[in-house]
Each structure stands twice: as structure tokens, then as C-alpha cells.
């Protein structure tokens, strides 16, 4: 085995392992996250990056042939199409009226959604949690 072949194989295996790690991490996030939007946050980036890395690994393994050009077209199309479809799904869900998930109780932040911004709402900024949301009041 020549040195060039060995370097190519090592690079291929490393990129494949990193790509599989990203895809598995995206899958775990897709199952474990509590909300639709956060699940989309997990899958939309991790799958695109993992797929791009794995296809780059297979391009390096295949060498400069016609097959590699085909896989390059496939990767370029996926890097364009996958964020577009993710954006389309998120916009459709937002237009339908799906509410984003919040980690605290809804009655504490009910005055955030009204948007009238009374002065007594700013009185509870010393609780710490409301302090970080005080930027949305004004």
C-alpha cells in the first residue's frame, strides 16, 4: 500500500466518523428536544453538516472521476435544498400559529405577550428571571 492511498483512507474514515457523529447527535436532539422549533433547530443544521462531511469523505475516497462530480452535484444541491426546506417548514408552522415552547410558567410572562408595557410590570425586575426579559417590554 502506498502512502497516498493510506492518507486518503485515513482522511476518509475520519470524515465519515465525524459525519456519523453529527447525524447521530442531530437524531438524539430530534427525539429528546421538547418543542417543534427546537427539534428543527437540531435537525436542520446537524443533518446538513453530517451529510456534507460524509459526501466529502466519499469524494476523497472515489478520487477524481465522473462519480465524484456526481456526488459533488448532489452535495451542492443538498446544501441549497435542506436549509430551504427547513425554512419552509418553520414558516408554515409559524403561519399556522404554533407557539414556541417556554421554559417558565405562562402566567408569569403573560404581560410580555400583551405588549402594552405598563410601568408596574417593570417592578418585578429584581426577581432575576424577569430581568433578562425586560428588554422586550419597552
Amino acid at each position, binding site marked *: 500500500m502506498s502512502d497516498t492511498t493510506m492518507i486518503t483512507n*485515513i482522511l476518509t474514515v475520519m470524515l465519515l466518523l465525524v*459525519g456519523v457523529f453529527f447525524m*447521530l447527535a442531530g437524531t438524539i436532539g430530534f427525539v429528546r428536544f421538547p418543542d417543534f422549533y427546537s427539534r428543527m433547530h437540531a435537525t436542520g443544521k446537524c443533518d446538513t453538516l453530517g451529510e456534507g462531511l460524509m459526501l466529502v469523505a466519499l469524494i476523497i475516497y472515489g478520487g477524481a472521476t465522473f462519480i465524484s462530480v456526481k456526488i459533488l452535484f448532489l452535495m451542492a444541491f443538498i446544501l441549497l435544498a435542506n436549509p430551504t426546506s427547513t425554512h419552509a417548514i418553520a414558516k408554515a408552522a409559524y403561519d*399556522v400559529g404554533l407557539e414556541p415552547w417556554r421554559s417558565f410558567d405562562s402566567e408569569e410572562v403573560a404581560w410580555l405577550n400583551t405588549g402594552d408595557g405598563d410601568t408596574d410590570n417593570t417592578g418585578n425586575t429584581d426577581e432575576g428571571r424577569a430581568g433578562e426579559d425586560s428588554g422586550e417590554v419597552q
Partner: protein
Amino acid sequence: MTGASLFGIEMVDIFLAMAILIVMASFVSLYRGIEGPGIFNRIIAVNVIGTKTIVLLVLIGFIYERPDFFDIALVYAILNFIMTIAATRY
């Protein structure tokens, strides 16, 4: 195609292990597609499984050394994109 082995391990076996990991990830995603509340979780699940299937098709094309699978992967990518756009605009 370049060399066939790395440190005594065949490259085809490494590709096969990656394909098995991707199939396992697809089944874990299928749980969210069946269980997930609402239609949008199912749309994302179909999109994710389709994305994994494209890489799986390219890996199968390298394992069996049949270049036909790359055309199938390209057509599958285009169909996946069109299906997602059509599902979000019904």
C-alpha cells in the same frame, strides 16, 4: 477506486458499519415520526429520514461498486425537496 484496506480493516466493512449506524438513526427518527404530536413533526421526520437515505444510497453505491445508485440518490434528493415544499404549501 483506491486502496481496499486500512490497518487490516476493509474499507467496505467501514462503509457497511456507517450504513448500519445511519439505518439505526433512521429508526430512532421514525419513532418521532410515528409518536410526534402534530403534522409538522411528521414532516420533519420524513425530511430527516430522506436526508439519511441519500447518504445511505451513496454508501450502498460504494459498497457494491455500482454507480447507478448515485443517480438514484440525486433523484431522491430532488424528490425529497419537492415533497417537503409541497407538504408545507398545501
